[in-house]
């Protein structure tokens, strides 16, 4: 490590002491419900204070949508350590469920919306029982296969409108969707935050860290993985269910959007996977950047996305929240009686 590097790190430490960051993160963690409440109030007050349906409301609604998708991905990908490339399958299933039910069967939107979540969960239970037996790369590939197969099925069937899709004209107002996506996001954040302090949440993290050990400790990991997968499918299905009407159009390409699947993973990683705030921060941040790029340099957003993923994975594998947390706790071990480690922890620290 060069001296200038040392200096700059020292400077950073004096401006932003790790202890302060640590205190800040602890406070956030302890007052999660308060922060979630404040965030909700802020989001609700925007339309009340005069944000009208239009470009900005649509952009913010999409931010909520992506936050739901990223956070759902993270329940399985981040918390449980099973990186899925097929989450958009549940989005598509939800989207087609509301589209078909409201258009062809004259269901009221709220009923169709609930059924979209139910359909996604039911299919997730079946698919999960098969693909969750696989680990690592094999799991990732299998889930990608699920996504592609689901997309192909919707191209073939008549009821989905085939490749040309479905146009949906009778849709609720833009403001309705703003509040609907917000509500789903808030509920999901609440659920994930709550679970992260229960033993159910601990088991998911344990599966991520060492599944064999978790099994040896008496946990039927298949059961927990499937539960997490179904929970993720529920919220992804809700998001899809609302999206088809929000977008007034659905076809196999938009419903099972592979690029979005990469985008939502990038958001979770960028923000900090395995946390509650991380995927949401990542979704808000990355979607804002993508919107800006889309406005000023049409077509470059995917290039930017690819670049962002590479930079994140190399530079900040823990994402924004994870990097902060790491920074805050760097001296933790030594402060709390870890001095014995100075002799023999070389092996341990090298694989961190």
């Amino acid at each position, binding site marked *: 490590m060069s001296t200038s590097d040392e200096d700059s790190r020292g400077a950073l430490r004096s401006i932003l002491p790790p202890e302060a960051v640590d205190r800040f993160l602890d406070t956030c963690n302890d007052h999660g419900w308060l922060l979630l409440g404040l965030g909700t109030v802020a989001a609700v007050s925007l339309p009340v204070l005069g944000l009208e349906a239009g470009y900005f409301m649509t952009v913010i609604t999409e931010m909520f949508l992506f936050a739901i998708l990223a956070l759902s991905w993270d329940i399985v990908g981040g918390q449980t350590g099973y990186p899925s490339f097929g989450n958009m399958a549940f989005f598509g299933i939800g989207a087609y469920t509301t589209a078909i039910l409201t258009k062809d069967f004259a269901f009221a939107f709220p009923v169709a919306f609930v059924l979209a979540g139910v359909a996604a969960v039911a299919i997730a239970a079946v698919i999960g029982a098969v693909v969750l037996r696989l680990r690592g790369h094999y799991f990732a590939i299998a889930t990608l296969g699920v996504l592609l197969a689901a997309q192909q099925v919707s191209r073939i069937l008549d009821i989905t409108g085939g490749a040309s899709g479905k146009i949906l004209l009778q849709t609720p107002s833009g403001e309705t969707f703003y509040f609907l996506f917000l509500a789903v996001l808030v509920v999901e954040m609440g659920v994930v935050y709550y*679970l992260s*302090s*229960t*033993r*159910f949440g*601990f*088991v998911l*993290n*344990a599966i*991520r*860290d*060492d599944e*064999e*050990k*978790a*099994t*040896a*400790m*008496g*946990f*039927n*990991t298949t*059961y927990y993985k499937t539960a997490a997968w179904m929970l993720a499918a529920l919220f992804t299905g809700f998001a899809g269910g609302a999206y088809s009407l929000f977008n007034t159009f659905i076809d196999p390409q938009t419903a099972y959007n592979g690029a979005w699947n990469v985008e939502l993973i990038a958001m979770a990683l960028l923000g900090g996977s*395995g946390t509650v705030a991380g995927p949401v921060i990542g979704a808000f941040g990355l979607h804002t950047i993508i919107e800006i790029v889309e406005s000023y340099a049409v077509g470059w957003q995917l290039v930017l996305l690819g670049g962002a993923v590479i930079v994140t994975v190399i530079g900040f594998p823990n994402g924004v929240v994870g990097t902060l947390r790491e920074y805050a*706790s760097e001296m*933790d*071990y030594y*402060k*709390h*009686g*870890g001095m*014995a*480690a100075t*002799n*023999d*922890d070389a*092996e*341990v*620290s090298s694989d*961190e």
Partner: protein
Amino acid sequence: MSKATAGTETAVESDRAVLRTDGVTKRFGGLTAVSDVNVEIHRGEIVGLIGPNGAGKSTLFNCITGTLTPDEGQVYLQGEDVTDWPEHKIARAGLGRMFQETRVFGDMTVRKNLLLAAQEGGADVGNLLRRPDDSLLARTDELLDYVDLAGLADTRAGRMSFGQQKLLEFAMELMSEPEILLMDEPAGGINPSMLENLIDYIRNANEDEETTIFLIEHNMDFVMEIADRIYVLAHGERIAEGTPEEIQNDQTVLDAYLGRE
């Protein structure tokens, strides 16, 4: 002796056997890793399992814990045939396991590792969806104090040294209060002073918590000091059984370690 008394005696005898294997055999292709092995571990014992490298010790452990299913033979846990049970169910039934390469959940805090280990309430959904209660938290503090990791409760387990992780893994087993604890080389890779502590911890767990212990060990001084009885495996077969003194003077055992058939 009448038949009735003989019957009762067998019942008592099998009650005392927390763990019993009956002719366990495991083959990998043409290799017989474990061949027709019988062991019987009684309540309150510390039993050692030794043998040269490749003798089949870890394979036998894997057959007992359900990680592998034996090709032949039965495994009984507290009198119940658990041979075909899945691994997690055997663990729930009271079998704890410490791995050879110390395994803790590295990205979770030390306290969460311990909370997870508690078997209280088991896999009951309602229980899992509640936050850990105060008595559980108090128990984690107590155990961390006991193994001298009290200050590190909120540190990520992966940050700790190897020895500390080993202590944490041991504390996790204490937390789960197993009927029988299988330890694969507990003394491997830790320094002599910590080894002294570990011996005390194992003895205390055995005496105070009434945990029965079955351990694989290569460190002869350690195993001879701590074990009540020892089984010796070589080439997958059980070649000797007895007290540490008997084993130390057993010619077949010496031959096996020196490579003589």
